[in-house]
């Protein structure tokens, strides 16, 4: 028997009005209660019917052409829910792997410095795990590069340079000034999208590591913004795209303006190539 309070929560859930702890508590109950799931499904159908009440309006004729033009030029492989996703080779230009190697070493350096910063034995252990994962990631990246025959002597030199950079970072006196921020999803249909931004104020550069963001059409990019209160508008941190299969991305960024104090990081959805001033919706934001 479903009581009134639960019916109320079910109605709010069907209308996507629950959030935070209320939502996660309700979803726990949903997983255990088939009759509650049936009720929510019925209420979702009823709430969806409300959509038909929107006053009639026609999109411009040009929208149809714009959408058809946004579709990929070649037909997609057949994919249904019972079949695994088709895998197509992803081109790996030289510059991407150079950046990946640099970002991986920067991530190594960041993990090491973060372990000094946190200071407690439990946090130190977690940071050591992070460092191990980063080393494994770096090692996997080096193995992949070799397999693709893209790793050249210049890349080895880049790694040596990155080690020099790591040594320079290690010499920096005030490790506590590194800013590490986590960005949470604002997308209701991609709630697991997230990112971590590591910002080095002395070097005026940082690394953004993104996961589970949806892939974008060809005419769009994600754009990173650095919010510094001294500027009236957020500062451009650069554009990036995610790997379609995983939704992951790694961006080494240098904001277009000198940054004195970072109050927030944010990611928005913009036109291809990015914009000078944020126009599109925010998809990730730090607290």
């Amino acid at each position, binding site marked *: 028997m479903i009581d*009134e309070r639960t*019916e*109320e929560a079910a*109605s*709010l859930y*069907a*209308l*996507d*009005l629950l*959030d935070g702890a209320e939502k996660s508590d309700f979803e726990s109950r949903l997983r255990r209660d088939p009759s509650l799931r049936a009720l929510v*499904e*019925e*209420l*979702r*159908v*009823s*709430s*969806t*019917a*409300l*959509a*038909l*009440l*929107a*006053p*009639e*309006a*026609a*999109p*411009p004729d040009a*929208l*149809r052409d*714009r*959408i*058809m033009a*946004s*579709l990929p030029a070649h*037909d*997609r*492989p*057949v*994919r*249904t*829910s019972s*079949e695994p996703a088709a895998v197509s080779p992803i081109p790996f230009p030289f510059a991407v792997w150079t950046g990946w190697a640099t970002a991986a070493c920067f991530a190594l350096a960041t993990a090491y410095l973060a372990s000094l910063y946190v200071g407690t034995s439990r946090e130190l252990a977690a940071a050591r795990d992070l460092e191990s994962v980063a080393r494994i990631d770096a090692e996997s990246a080096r193995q992949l590069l070799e397999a693709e025959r893209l790793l050249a002597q210049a890349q080895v030199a880049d790694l040596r340079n990155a080690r020099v950079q790591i040594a320079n970072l290690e010499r920096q006196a005030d490790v506590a000034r590194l800013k590490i921020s986590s960005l949470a999803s*604002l*997308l*209701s*249909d991609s709630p697991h999208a997230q990112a971590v931004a590591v910002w080095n104020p002395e070097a005026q550069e940082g690394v953004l590591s993104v996961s589970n963001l*949806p*892939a974008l*059409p060809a005419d769009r990019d994600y754009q990173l913004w650095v919010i510094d209160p001294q500027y009236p508008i957020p500062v451009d941190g650069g554009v990036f795209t995610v790997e379609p299969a995983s939704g992951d991305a790694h961006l080494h960024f240098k904001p277009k303006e000198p940054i004195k104090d970072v109050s927030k990081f944010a990611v*928005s959805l913009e036109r291809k190539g990015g914009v000078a001033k*944020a126009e599109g*919706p*925010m*998809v990730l*934001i730090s607290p």
Partner: protein
Amino acid sequence: MMPTPPESGTAETRREDEDAELIRRVARGDREAFASVYDRYSRPLFAIALRVLNDAREAEDIVHDVFIALWNKAGDFESDRGTAFGWCVTLTRNRAIDRVRARKRRGELLAESAPADLGYDENQAENADSGDMLWQKEKAAVVRQALESLPAEQRSALQLAYFGGLTQQEIAAKLREPLGTVKARIRRGLLKLRELLPQGL
């Protein structure tokens, strides 16, 4: 009195089966099927986005994104979990609501938020000149009739909840009612709507 469904159960089921088949063809990369889905759904989806956002350009962007998502995710659609149209409506509303909430986070002022009364004006509707539009109008009439039978306060709460892009607290503030009262109205209104709407609408 129960509202009359626009088509017999058989005709409605046939239409849903056609839609589901179109989506399966889209999942196989059939552009012609995709164009048919666009022709069937673009008007109501645009209407929903426009109703939520009050901005035609942003509504266009939302519809664009929904159809691209439909192209990419058509293989995820499962017909035993609901209708193709319902799936697209949900995609559209979610994206439109996200855009509304993103506007608030950027500190921009919203255009006047959704009025409690939709103020639907039948005279503004274009003449139905296709089977799809006629079907939509008839279904909308059934839903409107069901909604009209609800008490005004439940109607207002449901409309704000669906189209407003507001949180529970913001709906309560907009209606100048306690939060508990608003929640109860939403519960009663939605349960009543579930009873009044014919199965498979």
